[in-house]
């Protein structure tokens, strides 16, 4: 009976504590219980993002483990300037992008010239991206370079503001806006190439 009450209590605490409160409590007590809460809240999301960017389940699994360890070891550096989720996702995106760069040892391919696309589409409507069929979205996302894929995920999946993306990627606002524009252009170009007519 006592066990049941304790489980009930801890279950309600798990739900009511905000991420920031959990981090604070973990840092104060170093109690594994609080890390478990964060793990439960974020491990699947981190895995989903890693899988979308890295495309292989084995790599996503390894990346999720590494990101979770990175989070654990850097929890004390979370200053609360952004939402905890934004901080977690920034570590995830940066880890995946770095991983691919190291693997391919060729950064240049992610900064290819997209001026070739600019005559095809002037301005891309967000609606076009958001309402694209799920199967098509999946195929297009597999063909987009990781940098662009990540920035599109930050904007359209996580709903991050330009300022938040600046903090994640460590670039100026104008650079981020340009990168988003280029990523959208690539997205539409691939869409139109694959599904024209």
């Amino acid at each position, binding site marked *: 009976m006592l066990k049941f009450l304790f489980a009930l209590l801890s279950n309600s605490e798990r739900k009511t504590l905000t991420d920031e409160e959990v981090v604070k409590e973990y840092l104060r007590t170093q109690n*594994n219980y609080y*890390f478990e809460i964060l*793990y439960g809240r974020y*491990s*699947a*999301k981190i*895995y*989903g*993002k890693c*899988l*979308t960017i890295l495309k292989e*389940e084995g790599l*996503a*699994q390894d990346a*999720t*483990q590494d990101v*979770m*360890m990175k989070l*654990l*070891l850097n929890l004390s550096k979370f200053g609360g300037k952004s939402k905890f989720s934004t901080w977690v996702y920034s570590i995830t995106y940066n880890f995946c992008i770095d991983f691919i760069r190291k693997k391919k040892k060729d950064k240049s391919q992610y900064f290819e010239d997209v001026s070739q696309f600019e005559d095809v589409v002037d301005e891309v409507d967000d609606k076009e*991206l*958001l*309402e*694209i*069929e*799920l199967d098509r*979205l*999946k195929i297009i*996302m597999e063909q987009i370079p990781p940098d662009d894929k990540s920035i*599109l*995920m930050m904007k*359209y*999946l996580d*709903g991050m503001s330009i300022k938040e993306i600046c903090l994640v990627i460590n670039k100026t606002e104008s650079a981020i806006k340009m990168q988003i524009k280029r990523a959208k252009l690539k997205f539409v170009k691939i869409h139109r190439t694959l599904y024209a007519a």
Partner: protein
Amino acid sequence: MSKNNFQQLEEQMEAKYDKASDAIKNNVTSRKGTWDLIGDLFELYIPQIFSTLIGSNTNLSKTALKKEEESDSE
């Protein structure tokens, strides 16, 4: 932001997590255990190492002082 297909895509990816969740959890738990152990060892032994170092240093300076006094008295 209202629900969009990007979110649905991520939900599809997240659904694949169940398959890998046990392996990930085990690995993270064991790595965390190793870190905790290293932390505990540091916490336990670093102060002792310091106190030993300080103690031996104090002894050395005491011996040196004694020798000096002895040579002065001679």
